[in-house]
């Protein structure tokens, strides 16, 4: 419960031609946590199996196909037919897909081009001039662009006619501005462009229409017909790709899985030590699996390999596989999130299992809220089996919340039964309870720390480093109690305890320990949040209830508003409550509790062949 699985250091070595068999067997057993070999003067790292190159090539192709067909990875029940040639199947599929993708790309390109063209034609559609006229002439220039209002046009005509008689002006106006198209004598180009500039003329260019004949509106109609056809073709191509994706989804996902597995095997020798004709694997195997795995390895290689094993030594960096009873197992999630405890450290999972739900329950502490969160996480567990651990933790925490809700007599903020402790009215009582819980929790942490230190550095060090904190607390308590006159011991006794603890701490942890001195008080005070978070949640709930009650009394339409406030308010309060209670409960463990004993930093036991 408090210690991880016992591990054995294992060394497997044999002739290179047994490499394949050993890798296959290890991959199937899924028990060996491989320790990667790094190159040294005795042995290089191994070379990947011959198939690795080819496998990774096919894998890249399969993954590219999955991306192109928009296939998401998911759990499927699909067996690859034995003997199926993934390579040629993927190649064939790739040809089909890229043909369709190429077509789709071309269609989309044309559509984009047509869109640009139709924007130009849209401007010109009300002007009945053949589009050939836009090509450049020696004697005629043309200006196309916008002026702000139609009124400017007549003034412009007058001014231009002063400069030349040879000109033609077309206009079409929209709500915002007026489009002008002016053909004029090329000799007067500068004069006219001056006039136009003074009238606030902004030029528009038509780069796409140069190859067209006839007037704009007929071209536009033609273009629209064409676009509709293109869009149909685009939809067809997309549908074809979708169909291909649907039909090959299972194949792609399962072959991706298969290939990844094969590639992992093929690249495994990179972690091994190798000489030209032999290989050596180092790693860790849990005690209970040792016998079986050695047997099957020798069997698979016809007793031609050498296996050496020994239990973990004191300073080995042993990978950790946590061992906890089934009910505490979900709480390993929190350890995972933080850091794996070292191999010889106490595994705190069980403590978290005991206290996390209690802290959560005290903070949320409402029958209604607890029931809702129970329902929510029960549904989440059904919907998302992957987050099972997380849901299980919160389901348990919700149960405890309901229990504390009964203790506090709260149902959505209403006191529905006589509370044993009222969170709303007995703040101080609850504050003291919280602090008391803090003292107990922190001291449990110190005791665990004592055991850890005792195991790794002996009794005296444990006494100096961890016991000193307990003596310090006794000193402070005695001082405080004699100050208030609760106990009759003279303050000197308390001071003596205090001094003793400081000396012990200095011996145990040096100057760092002295700097940390006040932390024991802040740590314990920190448990006041058990009361504080709960209080804020209650007060908010009460306010929501009072506000909605006011609307209910007004009757009629106001009842609806009251219902809205009630539902919306409590929904928000539950969300805040869940988040707050979860994080703060977690924080009390990570910061206040773990800092008393936890070192962590071990690697997680990850056997070769096991999927994440």
């Amino acid at each position: 419960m408090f210690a991880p699985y016992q591990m054995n250091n294992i060394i497997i070595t044999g002739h290179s031609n047994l490499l394949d068999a050993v890798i296959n067997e290890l991959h199937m057993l899924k028990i060996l946590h491989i320790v990667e070999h790094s190159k040294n003067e005795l042995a290089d790292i191994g070379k990947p199996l011959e198939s690795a190159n080819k496998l990774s090539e096919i894998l890249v192709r399969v993954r590219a196909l999955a991306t192109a067909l928009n296939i998401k990875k998911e759990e499927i029940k699909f067996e690859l037919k034995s003997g199926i040639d993934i390579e040629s199947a993927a190649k064939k599929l790739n040809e089909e897909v890229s043909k369709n993708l190429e077509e789709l790309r071309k269609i989309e390109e044309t559509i984009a081009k047509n869109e640009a063209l139709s924007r130009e034609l849209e401007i010109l559609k009300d002007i009945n001039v053949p589009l050939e006229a836009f090509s450049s002439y020696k004697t005629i220039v043309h200006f196309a662009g916008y002026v702000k209002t139609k009124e400017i046009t007549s003034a412009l005509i007058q001014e231009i006619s002063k400069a030349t008689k040879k000109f033609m002006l077309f206009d079409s106006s929209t709500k915002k501005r007026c489009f002008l198209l002016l053909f004029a004598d090329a000799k007067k180009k500068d004069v006219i462009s001056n006039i136009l500039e003074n009238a606030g003329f902004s030029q528009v260019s038509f780069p796409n229409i140069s190859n067209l004949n006839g007037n704009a509106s007929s071209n536009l109609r033609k273009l629209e017909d064409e676009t509709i056809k293109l869009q149909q073709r685009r939809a067809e191509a997309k549908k074809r790709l979708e169909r291909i994706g649907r039909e090959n989804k299972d194949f792609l996902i399962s072959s991706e899985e298969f290939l990844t597995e094969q590639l992992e095997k093929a690249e495994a020798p990179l972690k091994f030590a190798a000489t030209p004709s032999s290989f050596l694997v180092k790693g860790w195997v849990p005690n209970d699996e040792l016998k079986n795995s050695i047997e099957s390895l020798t069997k698979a290689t016809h007793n031609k390999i050498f296996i050496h094993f020994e239990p973990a030594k004191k300073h080995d960096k042993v990978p950790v596989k946590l061992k906890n009873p089934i009910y505490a197992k979900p709480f390993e999630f929190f350890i995972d999130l933080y850091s794996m405890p070292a191999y010889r450290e106490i595994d705190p999972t069980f403590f978290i299992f005991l206290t996390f739900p209690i802290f959560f329950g005290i903070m949320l502490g409402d029958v209604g809220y607890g029931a809702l969160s129970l329902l929510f996480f029960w549904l989440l567990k059904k919907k998302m089996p992957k987050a099972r651990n997380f849901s299980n933790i919160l389901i348990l925490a919700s149960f405890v919340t309901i229990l504390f809700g009964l203790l506090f007599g709260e149902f959505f903020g209403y006191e529905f039964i006589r509370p044993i402790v009222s969170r709303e009215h007995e703040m101080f009582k609850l504050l003291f309870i919280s602090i008391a819980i803090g003292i107990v929790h922190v001291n449990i942490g110190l005791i665990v720390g004592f055991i850890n230190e005792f195991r790794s550095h002996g009794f005296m060090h444990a006494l100096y480093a961890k016991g000193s904190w307990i003596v310090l607390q006794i000193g402070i308590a005695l001082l405080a109690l004699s100050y208030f006159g609760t106990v009759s011991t003279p303050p000197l006794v308390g001071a003596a305890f205090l001094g003793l603890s400081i000396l012990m701490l200095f011996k145990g942890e040096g100057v760092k320990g002295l700097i940390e001195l006040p932390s024991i008080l802040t740590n314990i005070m920190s448990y006041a949040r058990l009361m504080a978070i709960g209080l804020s949640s209650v007060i908010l709930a009460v306010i929501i209830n009072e506000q909605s009650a006011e609307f209910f009394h007004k009757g009629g339409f106001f009842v609806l508003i009251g219902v809205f406030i009630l539902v919306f308010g409590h929904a928000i309060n539950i969300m805040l409550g869940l988040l707050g209670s979860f994080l703060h409960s977690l924080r009390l463990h990570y910061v206040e509790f773990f800092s008393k004993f936890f070192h962590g930093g071990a690697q997680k036991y990850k056997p070769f062949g096991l999927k994440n």
Partner: protein
Amino acid sequence: MAEISTGLIAIGSGLAIGLSAIAAAMAESTIGAAAVGAMAEKEELFGKGLILTVIPETIVIFGLVVAILILNLAKGG
């Protein structure tokens, strides 16, 4: 009509929690940003990041305790 002294006590206790909350927020914003940055590089740092981020929160708890003590002063006096 409440007396002025009651109002002053209310303001005092409001300041106690409000100012400490602002202080904690300022401290946490800097730490939180750095922690998220570190997490983006290395996901395993979540636990450490969370711890470092919530360390200043204790200030608010102290603020709250002081606020409640001040309010209690009002009841007693």
